[in-house]
């Protein structure tokens, strides 16, 4: 049941004589206005005003009530939301109230110079006189209303239902409204306000609670839970459980009944286009294209190689030709011949020839290794290769000394190389030996061996991970490391933070006292510490990591089920929930417990932090507050309990209320709970019937009365409901 508004402009305003009262039910959620004596209000709308800006013209306009949301797109509503004239259930913003009256009278068809009809308007129980007098002022001064009467909505509803035989002259009106809940005892057909009580909880709180719970439960769909939508959901799905605890237990156990009671709201969801598997031909075609491209590249490389070989061949032939020519040339002409060719000496030509031959060989792809082989062989005969080393310096010429130094250098490097080779070889042997040992162990007891390996792997993995964490997180292990470093302190590692500290102290450490920086040599060390290169203090390739890779490869060999754990970085990305494709279920809003949890706050206001008695207890409070008590009166009261007001529409309300009141009443006392014929409109109908009575005019007051009698009189003003 969504909001029902009736805002068509009435055309028969002028047909009513000026003595016909206008009846207004000014509720904090709905405003209803119509003519006395009629059965239904003429105009009904939500008691709110919006003042958005018209997008096209930029002017601020007033929009009263709720309109077609499609038309709201022409207005910029971001600056101001809907506003109400009410604070709790008391009118305090008379500017907004005025907009509402403007709209209401306009839609009722008013077109004269003033509103020349008596007005009966509802107010809350014990309305503060300030609000009353402001309302009177507004109606008298701005609209020219001749006379006013104030009444209480719940009382009108009770009287209306009494006339229709739903309740008796003595009874209790329980009125859970929009912002407050009242219990009013009636004795001899008149409300006794001394026995009345109010709890500041109502339909507004139920909707708000539901809205909050749903947006906490489904944070991704928060924007979907607009006030209007949640209000609709509340009216459609919420009910009052006969016993909250047992009902909740049904859901907790996941009983079949609970499943039936769960409601689901499917939000609009479009399945993502299913990824089609490429067909065979497609795969083949793609492979062919790839192959073709590869072939083209290979061809290109081959062509390039060929051209280079040709080029080198030509160069080689040229050089050889040059050499043969050079041999033919006379000794003395050699210099002039060489200068023509551009080479300086024969040796140079020869070395160039050598180079070209080598690169030609390389280009043709012939093995190049023989050079190294030769090296190795010459190594064996080191002594022959370096003949000068063992000769003392004093026996040598200066040239020979130079040569000796060179030989010494060459020898040491080649020896070093040899030693490295030796070491590698030894390591290989060691590894082999360990593998064999491992193998022996494995064959002895494969289970134990595997377990041991797993344990070792785990230990190492954790150790490395811990170290990484320390490095990235700067030692702040805050429990959930996988969420990554958040906040400034955690992003830097220890060294970086130290650097930042140094920089900041250096930047701000001036002014105080004498500047002694540089007096000592150690001061300059600071710059070294600050320099950027300082911060990666990696201790080279990590032994642990090497060991880890060894173990994991070994594990993969022996244990086919083993899967090495991913690195921390990759772990993070796989944990992101967004990577999962969204399904239909992600767009479902499920209400189970919420359906009866939200309206339950009417019975337990302290669930939302309002420390007041709930609906059932209020009845007891109300009876206790009555000045004239007696068993017969109390029995008559509980025998005619009327529920009215919008929040009494929840299914299961009367049963629960009856059970609750039975608990606080003496055993055997008669209890009858009835729901008003129409909990929402009965207040207006009762008021309309009341205003149509001939004696109504005795209950109104005019502007003159108001001005003569003053505020104190207005404070005590009270309608007589039985005329």
């Amino acid at each position, binding site marked *: 049941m969504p909001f029902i508004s009736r805002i068509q402009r009435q055309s028969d305003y002028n047909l009513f004589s000026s003595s016909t009262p206008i009846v207004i039910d000014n509720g904090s959620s709905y405003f209803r206005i119509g003519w006395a004596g009629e059965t239904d209000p003429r105009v009904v709308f939500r008691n709110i005003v919006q003042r958005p800006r018209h997008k096209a013209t930029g002017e601020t306009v007033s929009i009263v009530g709720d309109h*077609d949301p499609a038309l709201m797109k022409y207005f910029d509503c971001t600056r101001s939301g809907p506003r109400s004239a009410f604070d709790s259930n008391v009118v305090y913003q008379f500017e907004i109230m005025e907009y509402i009256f403007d709209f209401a009278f306009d839609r009722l068809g008013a077109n004269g110079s003033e*509103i020349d009809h008596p007005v009966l308007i509802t107010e809350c129980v014990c309305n503060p006189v*300030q609000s009353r007098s402001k309302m009177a002022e507004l109606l008298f*001064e701005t609209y020219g209303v001749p006379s006013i009467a104030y009444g209480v909505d719940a009382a009108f509803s009770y009287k209306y239902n009494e006339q229709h035989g739903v309740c008796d002259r003595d009874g209790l009106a329980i009125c859970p409204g929009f912002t407050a809940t009242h219990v009013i005892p009636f004795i001899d057909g008149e409300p006794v306000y001394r026995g009345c009580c109010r709890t500041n909880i109502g339909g507004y709180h139920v909707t708000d609670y539901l809205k909050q719970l749903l947006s906490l439960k489904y944070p991704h769909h928060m924007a979907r839970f607009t006030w209007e939508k949640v209000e609709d959901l509340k009216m459609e799905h919420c009910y009052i459980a006969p016993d909250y605890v047992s009902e909740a*237990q049904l859901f907790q156990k996941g009983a079949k009944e609970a499943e039936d009671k769960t409601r689901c709201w499917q939000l609009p969801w479009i399945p993502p286009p299913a990824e089609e598997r490429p067909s065979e031909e497609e795969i083949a075609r793609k492979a062919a294209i790839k192959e073709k491209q590869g072939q083209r590249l290979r061809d290109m490389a081959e062509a390039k190689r060929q051209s280079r070989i040709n080029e080198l061949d030509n160069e080689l032939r040229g050089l050889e030709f040059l050499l043969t020519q050079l041999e033919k040339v006379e000794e003395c002409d050699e210099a002039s011949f060489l200068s023509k060719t551009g080479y300086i000496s024969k040796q140079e030509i020869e070395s160039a020839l050598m180079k070209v031959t080598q690169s030609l060989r390389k280009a043709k792809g012939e093995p190049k290794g023989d050079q190294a082989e030769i090296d190795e062989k010459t190594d064996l005969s080191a002594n022959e290769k370096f003949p000068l080393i063992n000769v003392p310096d004093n026996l040598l010429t200066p040239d020979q000394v130079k040569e000796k130094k060179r030989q010494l250098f060459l020898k040491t490097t080649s020896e070093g190389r040899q030693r490295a080779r030796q070491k590698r070889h030894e390591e290989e042997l060691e590894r082999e030996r360990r593998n064999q040992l491992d193998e022996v162990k494995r064959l002895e007891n494969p289970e134990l061996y595997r377990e041991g390996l797993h344990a070792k792997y785990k230990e190492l993995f954790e150790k490395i991970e811990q170290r990484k964490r320390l490095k990235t997180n700067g030692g702040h292990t805050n429990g959930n490391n996988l969420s990554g470093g958040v906040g400034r302190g955690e992003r830097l590692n220890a060294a970086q933070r130290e650097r930042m500290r140094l920089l900041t102290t250096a930047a701000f450490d001036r002014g105080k006292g004498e500047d002694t920086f540089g007096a000592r040599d150690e001061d300059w060390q600071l710059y070294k510490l600050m320099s950027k290169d300082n911060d990666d203090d990696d201790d080279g390739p990590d032994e642990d990591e090497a060991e880890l890779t060894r173990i994991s490869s070994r594990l993969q060999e022996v244990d086919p089920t083993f899967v090495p754990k991913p690195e921390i970085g990759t772990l993070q990305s796989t944990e992101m929930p967004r990577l999962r494709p969204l399904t239909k279920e992600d767009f479902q809003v499920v209400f189970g417990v919420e359906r009866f949890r939200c309206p339950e706050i009417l019975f337990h206001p302290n669930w939302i932090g309002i420390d007041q008695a709930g609906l059932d*207890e209020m009845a007891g409070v109300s009876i206790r507050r009555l000045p004239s008590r007696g068993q017969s009166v109390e029995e008559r009261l509980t025998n005619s309990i009327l529920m009215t007001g919008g929040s009494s529409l929840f299914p299961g309300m009367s049963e629960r209320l009856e059970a609750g009141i039975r608990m606080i009443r003496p055993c055997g006392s008669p209890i009858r709970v009835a729901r008003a014929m129409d909990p929402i409109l009965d207040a207006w109908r009762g008021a309309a019937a009341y205003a149509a009575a001939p004696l109504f005019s005795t209950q109104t007051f005019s502007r003159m009365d108001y001005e003569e009698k003053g505020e104190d009189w207005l404070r005590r003003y009270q309608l007589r409901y039985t005329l």
Partner: protein
Amino acid sequence: MEPEVIQAEMVLPTHLSFKRIQMYEKYPKGQSRGRHWKHLKQIIQAENYQNYPPDEPNYVNIESPPSMHPCKRICDITGYEAPYYDPRTNLRYANTDVFKQIRSLPNEYVQRYLALRNAAVVLK
């Protein structure tokens, strides 16, 4: 204005014949609006209810007293009956599953759950 907006008569006209004082006369443009309306708390304070006999009903003394029944404690997350209470987050919870959930909740959500029953930490 767009034709459909005019058709629906959404926008309240600025001049209405039945009014003695028009809105623009009462609240001229450029003046701060809405500031001078007393809130309910201020209204009640100005009413000086303490000067009147206590058995005379007024807006304040008709309020219901606190409940005499023991408060039923429900799980803040699920709404089930809550036998437990988490001293770290102050949330009430029904079982271990919910406990796991509340321990993984970000603080913002914890505070919002607490705010629902007016128990959140309010920083001033």
